[in-house]
């Protein structure tokens, strides 16, 4: 399944924190502590990355096509998250297996979010917050929140794996200033 895009996602350059595996409560808690405590000397930046992490990690837990049972027997999503440290910004990436049908609306939502000004995005969040929750109980506004928190566009890639399934990667930059 190693396409060039996925390899790029998995390159070890500039990695500050990376994890691949089951996205269950215990692991998320360990990763959250790493981000909150050690990523940047600036607590405001850590908080931004943490907020983005929570929203995107929850998406992997709930929606990844690849599932595993955790130690308590609960069915949780499997995926990858990487935080890279560059001059001037951090890049947060999250990836998981998916089906094309289920991910197309998500990619369209990213395009829609990226086309909006900040004020429009805030209006969109207000609108979405008053909509019924998503089918798995999500707030349905996670991606909007990610874009508002990062103040940068959401980048994404969809890669066809050799077994015919797809790997979806979402990335966002968080400026250090």
């Amino acid at each position, binding site marked *: 399944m190693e396409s060039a895009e996925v390899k790029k996602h998995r390159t070890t350059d500039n990695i500050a924190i990376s994890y691949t595996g089951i996205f269950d*409560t*215990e692991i*998320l*808690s360990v990763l959250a502590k790493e981000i909150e405590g050690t990523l940047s000397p600036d607590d*405001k930046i850590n*908080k*931004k990355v*943490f*907020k983005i992490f*929570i*929203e995107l990690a*929850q998406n992997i837990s709930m929606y990844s096509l690849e599932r595993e049972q955790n130690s308590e027997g609960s069915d949780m999503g499997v995926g990858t998250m990487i935080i890279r440290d560059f001059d001037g910004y951090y890049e947060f990436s999250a990836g998981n297996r998916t089906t094309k049908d289920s991910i197309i609306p998500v990619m369209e939502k990213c395009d829609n979010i990226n086309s909006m000004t900040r004020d429009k995005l*805030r209006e969109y*969040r*207000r609108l979405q*917050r*008053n909509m019924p*929750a998503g089918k798995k*109980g*999500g*707030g349905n*506004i*996670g991606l909007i*929140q990610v874009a*508002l*928190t990062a103040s940068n566009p959401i980048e994404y890639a969809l890669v066809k794996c050799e077994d015919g399934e797809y790997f979806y990667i979402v990335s966002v930059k968080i400026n250090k200033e």
Partner: protein
Amino acid sequence: MEDIHIKGVHEAYFMPTVNFEVATGNCEISGESYLEETTKFYAPLLNWIRDYIDTVRGPLKFDIKLSYFNTSSSKCLVDILDMLKTYQKKGGQVTVNWYYEDSDEELEEVEDFILETGLQINKIPME
């Protein structure tokens, strides 16, 4: 009707501290809100407010001091604010103080809660 007192927890999930007092109508939600079952946590809080409005009919003062809340929690916070707005429209005395940390994004979010619910919210920087 009884008070609600919940001590906040910061472990795998983050449970906020909650203090709702029947005698004074003083209510506080503080700490961080990121829960495994968000609606299940907030349902008793919404029920308490509903009961207070129906039976006590006294003033309500809400102090919200959340340094972090995820998007699922924000939906429940909107539900609380909507309920307070409805009470205010019916003549109830409602004060909401929202304490925010020093960040433009957090101030923006409070302003959006005001636009979203039509409720007057006092924006106070957290010390």
